[in-house]
């Protein structure tokens, strides 16, 4: 494996984390949006708020990670993708702004009319961002992003059957991962009603996501032959693994078991992402730019690997700490520190 391949692998690791954790967040926004008003909706949203509160910010840093590794390790690919994909990426960024602001303000706004607006924004933008990112991935996989500054078609490159399907797949997959996570979280919160609520939704999302994935394969066959051929050869074990994980989740959900569904659901997503990676190899932009040709200067590539190593040593323990504290409910409700008196102002 060359240094450039290793950096590509690092990129894929970042994308995987973003897809799983960022995806779960987007999915939570989706469920928050369709939960509806009334008591049921309120309770579902309460669980969602409680769960994503502490981890929201950290989850989205993965996106920055992916962008930075892409432009540092493969600057030419970055420039080509961002200029041809100007429209969908601008819309994805718009979604990120709306989502972040909706999230930042909906708590404070709870006592004035803005709260509902903030929640809507949060929910709608949770659809916007993964959808348009999906169209970008569809465009890349089908070879519609040529090398160069805005060299591809600004519209048809992402406004086509495959891209739209991948966009929809991203939304559905996010909803699926999120619902599975929320089932476990509902159990942690000892809210049996919400556990049933999200079990049902996880089942529905799993079926829909599976259907979209199969449809995706069909469209890939006609529209992205390079990726399809390799996905059904070198990538086949991963595709099968993903399918098995998905089936496992379905079975567990039907039997109302929660042990093991999180890893299985994550496994289903991770296997697809790495299957796609295997299918694209050795290309960054299929049949247009290889990893080797697109790689940046060699000292930089080594530098990226070193920085990644440092990140693993520093960031992973910190994330582990955050998630552990969150799971043990050590960081949640705030209250004034115990040992000291209190004075109003």
């Amino acid at each position: 494996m060359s240094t450039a391949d290793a950096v590509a692998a690092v990129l894929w690791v970042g994308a995987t984390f973003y897809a799983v954790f960022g995806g779960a967040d987007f999915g939570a926004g989706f469920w928050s949006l369709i939960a509806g008003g009334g008591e049921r909706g309120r309770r579902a949203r309460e669980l969602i708020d409680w769960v994503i509160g502490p981890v929201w910010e950290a989850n989205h840093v993965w996106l920055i990670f992916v962008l930075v590794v892409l432009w540092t390790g493969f600057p030419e690919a970055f420039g080509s993708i961002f200029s041809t994909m100007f429209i969908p990426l601008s819309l994805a960024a718009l979604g990120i702004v709306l989502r972040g602001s909706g999230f930042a303000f909906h708590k404070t706004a709870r006592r004035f009319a803005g709260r509902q607006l903030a929640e809507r924004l949060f929910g709608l933008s949770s659809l916007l961002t993964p959808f348009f990112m999906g169209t970008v991935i569809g465009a890349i996989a089908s070879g519609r992003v040529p090398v160069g500054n805005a060299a591809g078609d600004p519209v048809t490159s992402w406004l086509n059957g495959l891209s739209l399907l991948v966009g929809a797949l991203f939304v559905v997959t996010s909803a699926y991962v999120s619902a599975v996570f929320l089932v476990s979280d509902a159990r942690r919160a000892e809210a049996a009603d919400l556990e049933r609520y999200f079990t049902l939704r996880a089942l529905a999302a799993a079926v829909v996501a599976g259907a979209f994935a199969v449809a995706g394969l069909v469209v890939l066959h006609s529209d992205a032959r390079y990726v399809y051929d390799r996905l059904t050869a070198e990538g086949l074990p991963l595709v099968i693994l993903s399918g098995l994980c998905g089936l496992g989740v379905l079975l567990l959900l039907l039997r109302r078991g929660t042990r093991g569904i999180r890893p299985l659901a994550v496994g289903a997503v991770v296997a697809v992402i790495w299957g796609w990676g295997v299918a694209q190899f050795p290309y960054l932009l299929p049949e247009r730019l290889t990893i080797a040709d697109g790689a940046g200067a060699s000292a930089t590539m080594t530098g990226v690997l070193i920085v990644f190593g440092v990140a693993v040593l520093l960031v992973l323990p910190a994330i582990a700490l955050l998630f552990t504290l969150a799971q043990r409910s050590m960081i949640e409700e705030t209250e004034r520190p115990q040992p000291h008196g209190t004075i109003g102002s």
Partner: protein
Amino acid sequence: MLDTAIPFATDLGAARSQMAFTLGFHIILASLGVAFPAMMLIANYRGLRRNDADAMLLSRRWSKVVAVTFAVGAVTGTVLSFEFGLLWPEFTGRFGDVFGLLFAIEGIFFFLEAIFVAIYIFGWKRLSPWAHFWTGVPIAITGLGGAFSVVAVNSWMNQPQGYTLSNGEVTDVDPLKVIFNPAVPYEVPHMILAAYLVTGFLVASVYAVGMLRGRRDRYHRLGLLIPLTVAAIATPIQFAVGDTAARAIADDQPIKFAGMECVQETSTHVTEYIFGRCTSDGVKGGIGIPGFDSFLVGWSTDTEVTGLDSVPPEDRPPANTLLHWAFDMMVGICTLLIGLGLWLGFVWWRKRDIPQTKWFLRATALSGVAAIVALECGWIVTEVGRQPWVVYNVMRTKDAVTGASGVWVTFSIVLVLYTVLGAATVVTLRVMARRWRRVEVEDDTDVPYGPSPGAPPAALSEGPG
């Protein structure tokens, strides 16, 4: 004046406007992100050490403000990383592997910062007080690291080195030379100090307004004193660092310096103009001090200062008057703020208390906005002054811009969106403040990370299906 600097009609103009606007917005939040946690920790430390309930309350409330500004800053920062590709694909496409490593390093700092911000904000209740304090310390440290990394990229754009170009392709990169480029020693401390200065005066100004409205309790005095002390210490240092930076720029980027000071012709005994209008026949209006510009550059009026005429017109920065005014405003405001710090220091020395006069409070109330104006002016000086280059003397901004059309559409959307975002941030903070004043019992449900009043109740009589 602005429209010659930023021609809206072209995609280049729209791209520059969008970048300038989003960066100018983010730089305020980034400054708060760098320096506010430090002040929150000072209050927290004081609260724990001296059992000071007022300080403790301040730190708790400041941590909530940090939560809001950090969340908004994370959003505007993400937008910037998109813009590297959306607006400047040729710049990032060619030099991404040169400066990118710095952003990768920044990524680690930001990641750690986000994690510890979350732990600190949510840790008030269950973590032990000192353990909780220590989970806040990494926030302040990573803020400094992140600022170093990002500003080092900007320094590199001003003083590019550490790579070789052959046929337009970057071939050899020496990461250490990139990271420690010659502009780092003055740009990085200048920006970090600016962050502390802006945050200090801004936070102090909030409490000054409160005191002017009659809320003169110990809580408000402490809320004014802590940030204002930090800012008062940072300001004179900033003046010295800025002065060093200006002299270094006269050496490293003489045309930028000539633009800042409206020096048309290379000569000695150059007059220093305070304000005035820059024209090709020299400065009209303004206050001139003969020979002083030469003196500032080299401690002697015989020092030769390079003029704009030493390069062809297409290599000169645009909007000279804007540049010159921005520079003078920055220096002027910094000088006034030093005066405010001295005022505080003097009265503290005599009376062991902050000055209670209306005029001191009024000045402090204005200092926050003034510091932000100075910050933006400094940003204009370094960015407009570098034009027409995106990478100084290597790549022109017009060669870096995207080939995609429709940037003016995204710029228009960004203008509206950020206006709303800025307004919402201010409104949110004001709502929080009002609630704090009204409610005696702390209400903890208004942080963006949103701890709900706990997990939803265990069961409902009629659960959904």
